[in-house]
């Protein structure tokens, strides 16, 4: 019982026992400023107003930020500026310094900052009476990374992307994000070196974020050639969801060129996008591909049948597609019923036509 141990220590405390070893020296509360500058290829394509932000916090699920790193381009180099909360009473000053740095930024770039870093800062600002907290345009690269590369790579944590997508060398001497809360407590307890480890980790994260930002920027600028074909489909879907019709069509066109043999699920996703973007004939080809074979997609067959009937005005071809789909023994009863209803309707329609034009 961990709780029993706690209360045993409480009784000892009440009896006057004090554990001198844990008495912590107060430290200067003022925010401490650190700076690093890094050479980074391709950074010149990135707008000067972008600010990359990454926080280290006192708890994995929240707490407060004790380290904030901001990266921006200055004189052609990536300049990383880091603030450290000197001691807990300095949080308001720490937040103000950070707000001043970010104020006026054209765009904030984060990785999962939309649901973690930014709301946390806003809450802490409110708690510390730092108002108003700046409202900035915010591009959280996690969401687009998941859409574009998540399908192929599976996990899209920043450290995974760093290795798999960005091809950066494995970090050495990096304690990892999970160690951050403990490192700050060690720093407060006066342990030399704890802070350096946290600063190093934060800078490495920002560098990785910067490389990713350059990659995303090159996609923005239409440089799609170096991407894996299957990622282009993800990119097209992402841009469609963001309402960027032109961008989605460009990415889709690039995918259609680069991927002659899409898988069944890719064919289905590609066909859906083609339909939305009015590429009907390409959609039909992809539906046919997805519906093909004994385990072909029934959804694709239905979509194809609708297309053949309504757009190509060819109910006979539509009926053939439906009959092929119905021949599959593994259909669920509900599916089978719907397909059978469609078959009946198509048959009736064909029957009506033939009766009107007697031989």
């Amino acid at each position, binding site marked *: *019982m961990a*709780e*029993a141990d*706690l*209360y*045993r*220590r*409480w009784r000892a*405390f*009440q009896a006057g026992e*004090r*554990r001198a070893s*844990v008495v*912590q020296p*107060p430290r200067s*509360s003022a925010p401490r400023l650190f700076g690093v500058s890094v050479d980074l290829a391709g950074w010149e394509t990135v707008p000067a107003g972008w600010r990359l932000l990454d926080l280290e916090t*006192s*708890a*994995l*699920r*929240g*707490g407060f930020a004790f380290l904030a790193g901001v990266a921006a381009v200055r004189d052609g180099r990536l300049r990383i500026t880091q603030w450290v909360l000197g*001691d*807990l*009473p300095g949080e308001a000053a720490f937040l103000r310094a950070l707000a001043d740095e970010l104020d006026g930024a054209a765009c904030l770039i984060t990785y999962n900052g939309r649901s973690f870093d930014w709301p946390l800062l*806003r*809450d802490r600002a*409110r*708690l510390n009476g730092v108002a108003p907290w700046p409202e900035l345009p915010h591009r959280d690269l996690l969401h687009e990374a998941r859409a574009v590369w998540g399908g192929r790579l599976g996990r899209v944590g920043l450290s995974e992307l760093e290795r798999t997508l960005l091809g950066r060398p494995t970090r050495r001497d990096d304690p990892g994000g999970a160690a951050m*809360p*403990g490192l700050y*407590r060690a720093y*407060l307890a006066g342990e030399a070196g704890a802070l350096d480890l946290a600063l190093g980790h934060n800078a490495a994260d920002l560098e990785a974020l910067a490389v990713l930002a350059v990659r995303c920027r090159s996609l923005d600028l239409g440089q799609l050639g170096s991407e894996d074909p299957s990622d282009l489909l993800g990119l097209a879907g992402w841009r469609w969801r963001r309402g960027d019709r032109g961008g989605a069509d460009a990415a889709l066109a690039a995918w259609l060129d680069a991927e002659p043999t899409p898988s069944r699920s890719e064919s289905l996703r590609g066909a859906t996008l083609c339909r939305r973007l009015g590429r009907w004939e390409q959609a039909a080809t992809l539906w046919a591909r997805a519906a093909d074979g004994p385990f072909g997609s029934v959804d694709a067959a239905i979509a194809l049948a609708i297309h053949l009937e309504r757009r190509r005005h060819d109910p006979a071809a539509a009926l053939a597609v439906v009959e092929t789909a119905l021949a599959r023994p593994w259909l669920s009863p509900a599916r089978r019923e719907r397909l059978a209803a469609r078959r009946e309707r198509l048959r009736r329609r064909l029957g009506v036509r033939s009766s009107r034009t007697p031989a």
Partner: protein
Amino acid sequence: MNLAQVLDQVATDIDIRPHIAAWHTLPAQPARTVPIPPDLHPELARALAHREIRSLYTHQAEAFAAARAGENVAVLTPTASGKTLCYNLPVLDRLCREPDARALYLFPTKALAQDQLAELDRLFEAVGEAAAAWKAFTYDGDTPADARAAIRQAGHIVVTNPDMLHASILPLHTRWVRLFENLRYVVVDELHTYRGVFGSHVANVLRRLRRVCRFYGSDPQFLAASATIANPGELAERLIGAPVHLVAESGAPRGERHIVMYNPPVVNPALGIRRSALRESALWARRLLREDIATIVFTRSRLSVELLLTYLREAVGDRVRGYRGGYLPNERRAIERGLRAGDIAGVVATSALELGIDIGSLEAAVLHGFPGSVASAWQQMGRAGRRDGASLAVIVASSDPYDQFLAAHPDHFLGQPPEAGYVNPDNVYVLMSHVKCAACELTFEDGEQFGEAPLEDVLGFLAEEQVVRHVDGRWYWMADHFPAADVSLRSAAQENVVIIDRSKGARVIGEVDLFSAPLLVHEQAIYLHGADFYQVEQLDWPARKAYVRPVKVDYYTDAELAVDLSVLDVFRQDEARAWGEVAVTSKATLYKKIKLHTHENVGWGRIHLPEAQLHTTAYWCAFPEGLEAALGREALTAGLAGLANLLAGLAPLYLLCDRRDLHATPQVRAPFTERPTIYLYDAAPGGVGLAERLFGCHEDLLQAAAARIAACDCEAGCPGCVGAAESGAPGSKAAALSLLTAIGVHAHG
């Protein structure tokens, strides 16, 4: 026949009359009203007129006036006396005057919160246009994530429970700025449920609430309402941590009330066996329901709800419904609606219906056995009681010694005050958890108050534990966890086993709490639900699912639980007493098949389920070895049981806890002490310090027990002393006294 005619008939029926142990009549009370207060906002006065309310009961007016004057208010009201207006009037009046004002309503359960929301919506509708912008929401575990953001901003009245306030609203207070900046009233209904350890937790949650309000510049008033309890004002003040204006006199009218204590006839004089109280209760209910008299039957267990329901259905058809824990929320709501509308004539319920759920008022209540406490008895009887016309409450005594004592001494119950509710917010085990939560919510300053709590001490300790850091006169939370997530306000697990009917494509038909599941839904058990019979085919314990199928059988099952206690560690001990860590294991062992109606045992089977274990802290007291020889085993067993029960009943006075927070286990020959021993242990896993304090007040407690027994003028034990024990066998009183004498405790004087 109407109720008056039924009463006439009962009074003269030679088969019934001799077995009525007492017939008590409480006279009708006329309404005491006052005109609508002139300072009530005109919009609201108009809304009341719209609902045909042209005057207020005196208690409603008093509560309104006190709230208008800025006081905290606690209202003690009987069932169906217009309680909710006592707090809704001040709240809505404020909203009329201050459109941005906010109120927070706390109810102990989600169902009550839903009820209140419906009532608020009706009031808003009556107010009409002025209320168009007002919004009331429930905010609990079922609230969808996307609705939460809107509620935080727009909810004028947020209806929630203390658990949600503790675990979600307070820790995220920066998201609730609008609520906290404008919070004017906090409504705490069903105040009497917040007692003992649970109440102590809630008192600390309210301290945290007041602290967060101060941060945002608000200082809300508290409006509380409580059912019958001996000390509502005191309990409210302890919970809220501020003086309270108590409104104790109800002005609501009440019809004449008949309280009948019925003791079933003796069928075997040699053995003193009486007719089954369950069957007699069914007879009373049938007698009333056949005359279309709306009746509620209260019984103690879920199983007896289903049995009574089965018997009543056979007699009067399906206008009778069951109501107990484990029915799904929709089913319960439908039953409540049916009762209010009069579509359902009768209901068989457990105390799940005791809390203020609105079912309208019924004409008659039948209590199968005396419920655990005096307050509970009054609440159950209060379910029958109308503003005009007579009502009847029948208590059918069971063969329990407690019931039999009351049947023999009916004045003992009628004259007894209801139990008091105690809380101890400064119990350090409870306090420490909430100081952590509070420190995480807002930094503590040196010299800050947290109720009466020894705050500096606790914070100093937490600094040593490195969860807070003391710098420049403030205490900062610095640990890497989220303390509210680690603290549960209720000691019982909220987890359930769901019951799934396989015959209808895996439909969920009910649920049962984790503790009772081994007894009610073990494999082969007959599970009754709404008087339908199901057999459990499979209990998937890890997945918390029981699969059942409807069956036609003429028996039900009843399982037995074996409980064992073993000592794991001794923290302190001396000759007479000890305090340490124990493991209490319970295991369902076997079940019996019992035939309907005759209640004969027609078979049995074994139950194969893992045992449940509770690690907690216990206080124990051992008695000399030679007592078994001196008293005889039977008397020793009875004496230990009686004394254990008495000690557990007295302890709440010393610990400021509730009877439910402590369990007592007597052992005639305890394996650990190798002597007769009484264990009293914390009901909460891990313990909340009650055992430690019992160790400290050991002598006072035993002294009080001796004094209580000596002062009681009963012969062989009664509920006033040792008698409510399960084995309140003859001789338990004398044996308990011998036990005390054997360890040198004598009643003074």
